[in-house]
């Protein structure tokens, strides 16, 4: 006890204090507080005028938004499954394959609404809205702005899962939106009664209970064939059982890399997963989860050789059945950042240029922009780059940390045609690559078809 207490105390006590800056900060804060106290009275007088202006502005914005939103867009805009779900769930919403539920339970002045549900043979997803009473002190109750939620899911009265989490999207100050997901859903049938019982929200005991049925997407393809490929050096890549539902592709994989280029910077072991469309369009698929039960699984390899056995889930952004998987190692120049929920993350450095004809991204293997074409729903960019590089350039509004990923690409004789979601205001956009080197293992590429 004393050792632990001492260590925690030392940990914080050893933080060096910038005495002069701290003195200045505190003095300045006191002066600011004094001056704010003095102006409070004057501010009150101005408040009503400001409120009136804001009402006019808000009403104006609301009218404009309502006018311009199309019906289909509106559904996607309002769907929590779309806003917070992975690419496979987003596609289900786009194709209207979710069940709209709108079930409400109210207890202790906290309103919980189950908005939508989706069920197939790989996952069950429910979206929820939580409205907290305005007198609840969200900070002091949980020390987290988002409420904590605890509950249980039953299928035909039998408990399937306890859940407890606190990561929600904040819609308004007292309204939160979240998605609950359950995997291994093959034995849940369309007519089964699904019950959600929430018994505690943000420390408040209560009873928020919902019972309902969900339509089920039955498509499920399982392929138990396995293939191992090996290159001349002895590196090998195994893909085992593959399972496919409308939203997810799952497979097991084992990679052994005995030799490669020296690893510098922040290295990660990755896989490029491409869904191949009927006309040869290559759709870039993101992984949804990767898991290994290995001790110290080498997701960030530091040396060779290494072996990684894992289970991979990929979000299906497109209704394709042929996939190409290529292992590679990416080594990034990265900066460490603190993740707000705790932990350490890494921001990868970008090499960015304005999105315009003739622009060249000066990466190790340069990328040149040949043309930009605006289509009705997409922005198409023609580029030249080394086609063996496993990632496509991304686009970001200048100064923004957000960015847009490529949807798909086609390799033509003299250029690569890359498709992005429709981008407005091209003048303010930049095209960029991460400052990284890629070790690709093309001889280990596996291709499989599940139809």
């Amino acid at each position, binding site marked *: *006890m004393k*050792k*632990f*207490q001492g*260590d*925690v*105390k030392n*940990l*914080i006590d050893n*933080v060096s*204090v*910038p005495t002069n800056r*701290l*003195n200045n*900060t*505190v003095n*300045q*804060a006191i002066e600011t*507080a*004094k001056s*704010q*106290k003095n102006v409070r009275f004057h501010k009150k007088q101005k408040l009503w005028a400001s409120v009136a202006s804001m009402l006019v502005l808000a009403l104006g914005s609301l009218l404009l938004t309502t006018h311009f939103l199309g019906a289909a867009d509106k559904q996607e805009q309002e769907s929590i499954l779309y806003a917070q779900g992975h690419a496979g769930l987003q596609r289900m919403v786009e194709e209207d394959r979710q069940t709209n539920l709108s079930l409400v339970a109210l207890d202790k002045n906290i309103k919980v609404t189950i908005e939508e549900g989706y069920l197939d043979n790989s996952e069950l997803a429910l979206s929820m809205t939580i409205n907290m009473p305005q007198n609840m*002190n969200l*900070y*002091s*109750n949980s*020390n*987290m*702005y988002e409420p904590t939620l605890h509950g249980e899911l039953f299928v035909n009265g039998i408990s399937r899962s306890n859940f407890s989490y606190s990561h929600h999207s904040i819609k308004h100050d007292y309204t939160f939106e979240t998605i609950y997901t359950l995997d291994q859903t093959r034995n849940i049938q369309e007519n089964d009664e699904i019950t959600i019982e929430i018994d505690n929200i943000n*420390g408040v005991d209560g009873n928020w209970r919902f019972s309902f049925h969900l339509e089920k997407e039955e498509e499920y393809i399982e392929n138990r064939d396995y293939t191992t490929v090996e290159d001349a050096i002895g590196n090998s890549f195994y893909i085992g059982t593959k399972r496919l539902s409308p939203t997810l592709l799952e497979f097991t994989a084992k990679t052994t890399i005995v030799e490669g280029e020296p690893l510098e910077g922040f290295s*990660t072991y990755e896989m490029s997963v491409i869904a191949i469309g009927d006309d040869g369009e290559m759709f870039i698929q993101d992984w949804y*989860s*990767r*898991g*290994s*039960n290995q*001790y*110290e*699984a080498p*997701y960030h390899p530091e040396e060779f050789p290494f072996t990684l056995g894992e*289970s991979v889930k990929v979000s299906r952004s497109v209704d394709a059945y042929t996939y190409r998987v290529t292992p590679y190692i990416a080594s990034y120049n990265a900066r460490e*950042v*603190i*993740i*707000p*929920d*705790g*932990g*350490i*993350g890494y*921001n*990868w450095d*970008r090499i960015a240029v304005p999105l315009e004809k003739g622009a060249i991204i000066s990466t190790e293997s340069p990328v040149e922009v040949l043309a930009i074409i605006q289509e009705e729903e997409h922005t198409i960019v023609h580029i030249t780059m080394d086609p063996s590089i496993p990632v496509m350039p*991304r686009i*970001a509004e200048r100064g*923004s*940390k*957000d*960015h847009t990923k490529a949807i798909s690409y086609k390799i033509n004789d003299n250029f690569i045609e890359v498709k992005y979601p429709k981008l407005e205001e091209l003048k303010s956009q930049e095209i960029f690559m*991460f400052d990284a080197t890629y070790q690709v293992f093309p001889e280990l590429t596996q291709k499989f078809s599940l139809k």
Partner: protein
Amino acid sequence: MSKIRSFFKLSEEHNFEELIKAEQAKLYKIAYSYVKNEQDALDIVQDAVIKGYKSYHKLNEKNYFSTWMTRIVINSSIDFLRKSKDVISLESEWFDTGRNEENKTIVKMDLEKIFNELKPEQKTLLILRFYSGYTVPEIANILEKREGTIKSQLHRTLSEVKKKLGNEGGEYYEEVSGRC
């Protein structure tokens, strides 16, 4: 009457300024424990001092000034993290070292790294219990939670610390656990 009031207000302000000088280093260290960045920690202290100054007249028992300001700085730190979440979560790419939910790998790490990886509310418990030295009932009072809730959250946090410390942390933790 107004002169007496003004005098009282003046002495109260002086009192706040004196008290905050004695606490400011400690408050900075707590803020820094959350954000690990000098400028952000200074911003948090500034925010907390402004809030404290404005509400100081509501603090009836001045002996609790330290506890009261600790609570304000903790809330300001969490508020800061919540606000920066909107910004940071839009960052191009980051690699969460805990990205692999199915990975049951237990990696032995030192206490500082483990502490940095804890959630803000877990850090709060360790700071209040083991840095500030508050008892469980006092923490419950500060965080406006039931003692039972604090005990179970502290237990869960220490279990997590134990797990991450690996075998080496086992005995270490058992000692800690006995006193919670």
